[in-house]
């Protein structure tokens, strides 16, 4: 069997970046939350903040470590697997990645050492500054890498010389048309992901009656973010969608499984897109709602997939379904935030066990939504690596399928193992919970029976 280096390289890049993105999605928000806890502890002196900060710093360390090592891989894969892209777009992408290293990676890495090991070695103010620098570094990193990604989606500010992209206007390169939306959407996604993890752990503590004081702080702090950020994220997503409609119409058509151009179009809730027959099977939709969402008018017209050559369309079923998973989770998150706010306002939050169970189950929701969103964005970009200009199949490195199969197998093996180990150690940290700083522990006695009878 002939191993295809293009397909295998796509699998490898997709797999390694999907693994990687789980960690930044979590640590961007977590770093900000840790800075917040540190500040609260400095201001109020309440030990609950310090204890939470100590517990979550350990969880942060594991996640950040996995994020760093899996990120280094990506900075080399552009060359090892996609040397055609590095050669032709290196003038644009190289500087953006270099700025990420210069302005973010060193900041994160240097202050991380102080954050993890230096609490007793530096004054409190310097420690707070170190945590803030790490949090700030994660944001700067997101800025540059999303700028590079957005340029590949909606290239601008460039000229082509001898088949090479060169920068004509750096501001236009960096602030390319999809960048503001993608940055806002991803950073919000990261904060939501973290908030749901914190809420889930807090809810679980409340449900089991352990570390109740800590659990309450976690749930309330997380909800105070979720309640407004989840609906805001839907709004940002909507704006991002309009941007996709203008700049990447084939991707939008695949997201909505629209084959014919025209309007008004329905919002398709369920369908099985059939690419051979160029139609949907088992379609279930709400008439005209699609037009309203995509064009903000009841009878707006939308370009369908048939307007594009077959060779220029992405895989419709994957894009259609991954988008639905993401959007569905977005709605669920908004409901969870609103319900939580109502329960809290009416003083029933801690006794609503059904709600706490729901929050616990929602713990991984952010991660799944992020992955689904990235599949939508990146599979939706295909068959292009630089949208409309450079095809993915044309930029693969001169390597053999066998080499890529070997490395892919190695990554799957090692990442699978590390993911298991990381999850194991993080869940053990969560189970053992916050420990009291000297003097004795401050949380209530661990008596599940007593706690259960309270509810």
């Amino acid at each position, binding site marked *: 069997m002939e191993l295809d280096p293009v397909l295998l390289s796509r699998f490898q890049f997709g797999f390694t970046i999907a693994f990687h993105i789980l960690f930044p999605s979590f640590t961007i928000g977590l770093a900000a939350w840790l800075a917040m806890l540190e500040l609260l502890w400095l201001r109020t002196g309440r030990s609950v903040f310090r204890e939470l900060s100590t517990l979550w710093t350990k969880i942060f360390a594991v996640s950040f*470590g996995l994020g760093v090592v899996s990120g280094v891989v990506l900075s080399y894969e552009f060359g090892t697997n996609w040397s055609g892209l590095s050669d032709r777009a290196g*003038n644009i992408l190289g500087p953006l990645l270099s700025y990420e290293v210069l302005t973010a990676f*060193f900041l994160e890495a240097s202050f991380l050492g102080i954050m993890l090991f230096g609490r007793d070695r530096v004054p409190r103010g310097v420690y707070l500054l170190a945590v803030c620098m790490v949090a700030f570094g994660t944001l700067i990193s997101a800025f540059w890498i999303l700028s590079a990604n957005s340029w590949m989606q909606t290239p601008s500010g460039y000229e082509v010389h001898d088949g090479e992209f060169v920068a004509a206007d750096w501001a236009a390169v960096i602030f390319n048309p999809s960048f503001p939306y993608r940055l806002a959407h991803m950073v919000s996604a990261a904060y939501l992901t973290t908030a749901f993890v914190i809420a889930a752990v807090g809810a679980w503590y409340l449900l089991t009656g352990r570390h109740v004081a800590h659990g309450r702080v976690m749930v309330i702090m997380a909800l105070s973010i979720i309640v407004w950020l989840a609906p805001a994220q839907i709004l940002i997503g909507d704006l991002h969608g309009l941007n996709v409609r203008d700049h990447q119409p084939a991707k939008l058509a695949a997201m909505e499984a629209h084959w014919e151009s025209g309007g008004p179009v329905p919002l398709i809730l369920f369908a099985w897109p059939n690419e051979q027959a160029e139609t949907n099977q088992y379609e279930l939709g709400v008439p005209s709602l699609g037009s309203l969402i995509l064009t903000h008018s009841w009878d707006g017209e939308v370009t369908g997939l048939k307007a594009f050559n077959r060779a220029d369309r992405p895989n419709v079923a994957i894009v259609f379904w991954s988008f639905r998973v993401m959007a569905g989770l977005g709605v669920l998150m908004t409901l969870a935030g609103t319900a939580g706010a109502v329960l809290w306002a009416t003083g029933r939050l801690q006794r609503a066990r059904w709600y706490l169970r729901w929050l616990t189950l929602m713990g991984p929701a952010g991660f799944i939504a992020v992955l689904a969103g990235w599949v939508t964005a990146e599979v939706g970009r295909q068959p292009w690596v630089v949208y409309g200009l450079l095809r993915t199949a044309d930029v693969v490195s001169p390597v053999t399928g066998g080499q890529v199969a070997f490395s892919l197998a190695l990554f799957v093996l090692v990442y699978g193992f590390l993911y298991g180990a990381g999850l194991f150690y993080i869940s053990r940290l969560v189970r053992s919970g916050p420990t009291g700083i000297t003097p004795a522990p401050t949380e209530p006695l661990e008596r599940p029976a007593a706690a259960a009878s309270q509810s």
Partner: protein
Amino acid sequence: MTDAHLLIIVPLAWAGILAFAVFLYVLLDGFDLGVGILFPFVPSHDARDTMMNSVAPVWDGNETWLVLGGAGLFAAFPMAYSVMLPALYLPLILMLIGLILRGVAFEFRFKAKWGRALWDWSFAGGSMLAASMQGVALGAFIQGFEVDGRVFAGGPFDWLTPFSVFTGIALVAGYVLLACGWLIIKVEGTLLDWVYAVAPKALLAILFGIAVVSLWSPFLNDDIAGRWFTFPSIVMVSPVPLLTIFAAAGFWRAVSARALYLPFVFAVVLFFLCYTGLAVSLFPYIVPPRLTIWDAAADLRSQIFVLYGLIPILPVILGYTAYSYYVFRGKVGVGGGYH
């Protein structure tokens, strides 16, 4: 300055910057990879804890120089990046796997109860793999690459030769030497005695490595031979081997006298001299023996755009890196300071 001047000077400046970044990487990650390589051989379990604690707060920053090297090459010499990375596909992938295995060990090892031995091996094996693959890649780089136009045209195993295997082993010895210098500064007691005993052996190993690579590489191509063995260049380059001998003697004496900082300083000097020798052999090629730094240079606007940021930011990075080292100065205690 006219554009013609800039087209000559800016790629040269970038070559200097990348050479600096890679050199700092080799020194900094060199000693912490070397600590990993020594890991299985130390006498006690507590000694391993101390060794790991000595590098735990700084390894991440050290490794970032490798990322800067990669991203900087991508930005300033994209053609070199896109030729060499596919050419070095397997050694680079194995290096990355090694860096992953050792990097996660920092976090997992201290959290493990029954799994600690597993992470000891992950740390040691990963460090060994990463170091040796870097050495192999270096050997392959000195040998040169087959290039057709702007694309790598060789086979998947071109990098694997007796020479590159030898440079792989030699770099491992070099990293061990740096690790000895580092540990002498950071540890105490029986572990310190052990390091003082190992350091001379590491020195002999690396001197053997330097001698063999120095005598072998001129035979790889006539160009390298011409730079070292013809008049007048021989006059220019002869101080390099002589100073190498002085630095080696300095290291030996510093270890015998149980000096605190000098062994590390001499190890750094030794690395600097080897690095200079390499530059003499290869300059101005960035993809030997085909592409010079000017052939592979990015569009001038791209090179200058990054310089605008790099020139003010690099000193700041060096500043807070130095601060971080300052915070963790002095000897580490057993298990001390872990979060």
